[in-house]
């Protein structure tokens, strides 16, 4: 019997309605309509002005990139988010990645650490090392960074609630090795606003949390010129179910909230704005994502120059890190994820990212194995060295489709920013559940589209095969947790009790008096106070956040 070839119709339950392709509805992953073709007329009707809106790479409004030569001058940083189990295991993974050509470090912490809890906290049971590395004290940080030249490598730390304390541990580790803090380069995610709406890794209530973020911005501005104190993130907002437009709009709004807070603290815009950085998701829809990145740069440039009056061109630059979309990975036919990640990474590069993480093929099931993470890194390297897309800045500039989509994205984003302004800003909007509701609505809409096979996920709701391919899953050291508990116990035993106690007392007092906590945190971590002890100390002053429940 013959096997008949499939056509597109067999994969969809309803073939876009109309028989005439011109009439059929095609939308981006986010649900935005896409036209059959784009011409100069589309640019005109969108109100596009090449001089004003496009310019050239390296020139305001930076739609085409923040540098004139982009990757010809310097490639994006290949920065692979890594962390699992104990400090020793993760240190080995860092070395592996550096040896294989990554150019920057990125640390993933486990859930207890993300919530400011030690490994031996009762609520940490079962959660040790499962989605990142456990760091409960300076001792763990020192082990984690063993053999890593902190004055030659930049490090990004994905930490939010307890960011200031973890950052203090990083700085303390460097200083103990004789490296001055001013020589340290890196990024602290430290974006607490998106925790309240998307990722839920908050500890203290919003006002206290913002105060802590501003402390770090102030400290970095004064003492650490090479450090990005905040990485305003859209990645997690997108992972929670937002559309591309919402991801960008909510992120930009959060960015302005941090800028406002820093200005209120008395910092000068041109002092700190150059070190505000961003972090975006890169999902499947190739052109939508590229348009998103270009619109992002344009909008931020205008905000910085026109709303905030920044004079330093570096203040106008939107610098961002990109991670390929975790939520697009499938457990079915995991090898397909290599292809998805490649397309997404390419979009990030064509979108002009400064730094890139590529997901591994096994991440729908587990943390990446050595083999899988090497493929992910090689993906970036092949794009960088073999594809030719890096030879010229913003290669897609001038495309009717890309410029139309960029402009339309910008317009949609501005409308949302206006809505948020009308509510009174980010904090009132969080209170009112504005972000949470929109994210939950978009998330459900997408799920319904997948269920209706309006959106196809290859291998999942169409083009399926039987059985799962056996791929090696990362195994963690079963002794890791016990070792970690032992280490914490040892730290508690061996530290100078007087110095430790007084450092925590001083921290609490400083918190009560609303002083910048960074010096006190540095002192506490150097006295080997554990993360949990520091968190409890601050909870006693700030309280704990009780979230709204928007389904």
């Amino acid at each position: 019997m013959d096997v008949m070839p499939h056509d597109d119709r067999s994969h969809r339950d309803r073939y876009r309605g109309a028989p005439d392709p011109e009439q059929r509805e095609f939308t981006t992953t986010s649900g935005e309509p896409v036209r059959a073709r784009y011409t100069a007329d589309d640019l005109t009707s969108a109100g596009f002005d090449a001089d004003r809106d496009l310019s050239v790479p390296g020139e305001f409004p930076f739609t085409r990139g923040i540098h004139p030569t982009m990757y010809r001058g310097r490639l994006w940083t290949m920065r692979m988010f890594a962390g699992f189990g104990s400090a020793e295991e993760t240190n080995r993974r860092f070395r592996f990645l550096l040896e294989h050509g990554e150019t920057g470090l990125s640390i993933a912490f486990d859930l207890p650490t993300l919530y400011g809890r030690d490994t031996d906290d009762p609520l940490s049971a079962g959660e040790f090392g499962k989605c990142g590395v456990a760091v409960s004290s300076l001792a763990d940080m020192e082990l984690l960074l063993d053999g890593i030249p902190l004055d030659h490598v930049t490090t990004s730390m994905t930490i939010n609630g307890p960011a200031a304390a973890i950052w203090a541990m990083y700085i303390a580790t460097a200083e103990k090795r004789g490296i001055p803090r001013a020589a340290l380069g890196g990024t602290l995610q430290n974006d607490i606003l998106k925790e309240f709406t998307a990722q839920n890794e908050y500890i203290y209530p919003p006002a206290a949390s913002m105060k802590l973020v501003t402390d770090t911005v102030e400290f970095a501005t004064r003492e650490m010129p090479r450090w990005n104190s905040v990485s305003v993130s859209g990645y997690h907002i997108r992972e929670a179910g937002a559309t591309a437009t919402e991801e960008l709009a909510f992120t930009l709004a959060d960015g302005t909230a941090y800028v406002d807070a820093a200005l209120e603290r008395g910092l000068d815009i041109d002092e700190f704005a150059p070190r505000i950085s961003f972090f975006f998701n890169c999902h499947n829809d190739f052109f939508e994502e590229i348009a998103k990145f270009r619109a992002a740069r344009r909008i931020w440039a205008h905000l910085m120059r026109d709303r905030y009056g920044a004079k330093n061109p570096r203040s106008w630059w939107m610098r961002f890190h990109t991670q390929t979309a975790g939520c697009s990975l499938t457990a079915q036919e995991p090898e397909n994820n290599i292809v998805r990640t490649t397309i997404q990474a390419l979009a990030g590069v064509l979108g002009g990212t400064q730094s890139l993480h590529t997901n591994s093929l096994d991440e729908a099931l587990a943390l990446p194995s050595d083999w899988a993470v090497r493929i992910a890194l090689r993906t970036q390297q092949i794009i960088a060295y073999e594809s030719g897309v890096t030879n010229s800045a913003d290669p897609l500039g001038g495309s009717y489709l890309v410029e139309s989509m960029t402009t339309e994205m910008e317009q949609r984003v501005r409308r949302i920013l206006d809505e948020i302004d009308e509510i009174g800003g980010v904090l009132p909007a969080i209170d009112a559940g504005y972000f949470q509701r929109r994210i939950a609505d978009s998330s459900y809409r997408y799920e319904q589209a997948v269920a209706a096979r309006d959106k196809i996920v290859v291998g999942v709701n169409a083009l399926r095969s039987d059985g799962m391919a056996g791929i090696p899953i990362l195994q963690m050291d079963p002794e890791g947790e016990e070792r970690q508990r032992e280490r914490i116990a040892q730290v508690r035993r061996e530290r100078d009790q007087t110095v430790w106690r007084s450092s925590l007392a001083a921290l609490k007092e400083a918190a009560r008096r609303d002083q910048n906590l960074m010096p006190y945190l540095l002192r506490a971590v150097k006295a080997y106070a554990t993360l949990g002890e520091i968190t409890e100390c601050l909870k006693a002053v700030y309280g704990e956040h009780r979230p709204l429940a928007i389904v």
Partner: protein
Amino acid sequence: MTELVVRFLAGDRRALSRLLSHVENRTETGSIAVRESFTRTGRAHIVGVTGPPGAGKSTITNALIRHFRDGGRTVAVLAVDPSSAITGGAALGDRIRMMENYDDPGVFIRSMATRGQMGGLALAVTGATHLLDAFGFDLVLIETVGVGQDEVDIAEAADTTILLQVPGLGDSIQTIKAGVLEIADILVVNKSDRPDARQLVRDLRNMLLIGDRPGREIPIVETVATEAGGIARLAAEIDRHHAFLVETLRRAERVERRLLREVALLARERFERWLAVQLESSITIEERRALVNRLVDPGTVAGDLVDQMLERRSGDPLPG
């Protein structure tokens, strides 16, 4: 079946929980449970909390729970949310705000969906209230979204009705439906730390002046529920209202009215069940065909049926 009731009477919390389901589902077991425990009811102070979505009802309820618990009183909460008219389902999320009470045996929280049945909600709520009252809870808080007929139903079921308002939810005065203000015994303005709260308080005061409630001035309590601000005063007003009802014998009046209303609803429920069965068996094939062919109208068919049923029951021919 009755084992469940026996355990409930002995103070078994799991039995209480199961019986609440029975009452909600209008089963025979539920009726038996109410019957067997009715002598123990009448003690609890029943407080209705209603207001628009976003007003902070669950936060207020949780703050009240904490306050009353600190004072040594036990609290049960019925959190009522609307069911979808189309799917019949409901997302019940009020409990989240009150999760900190999970290991306090002096607190019981139950989420209930309206299930879109006329009168059905009222009976489920009154039945549940009786059981919680009989179980020994000092206070029963009934939380509802102030939409439609439900808030009036709840007001009937409660001794004290609290109406919650918040600034900034559109034109506050226009959204306070006429008549809703009539049922409130206490008005609460939550999120009173917002600048536009002052205007809302003023507007509410003016509206109260226009209305006419002899014998008692309706207090307006300002709260910031997230910080437990104003909660002590709200609790005091709740107690004050209870005392007022008892002293002025209004409580006895209200209770009598409420119980009689419950009798009427229960009677109607029973009658409707009987009627449903009758209708099933009473309409003949010929009558159905006649209806469909437009030879006779539904009103005539219904009239004939009811007359027949009543004649059959009483044996006497009907007058006229």
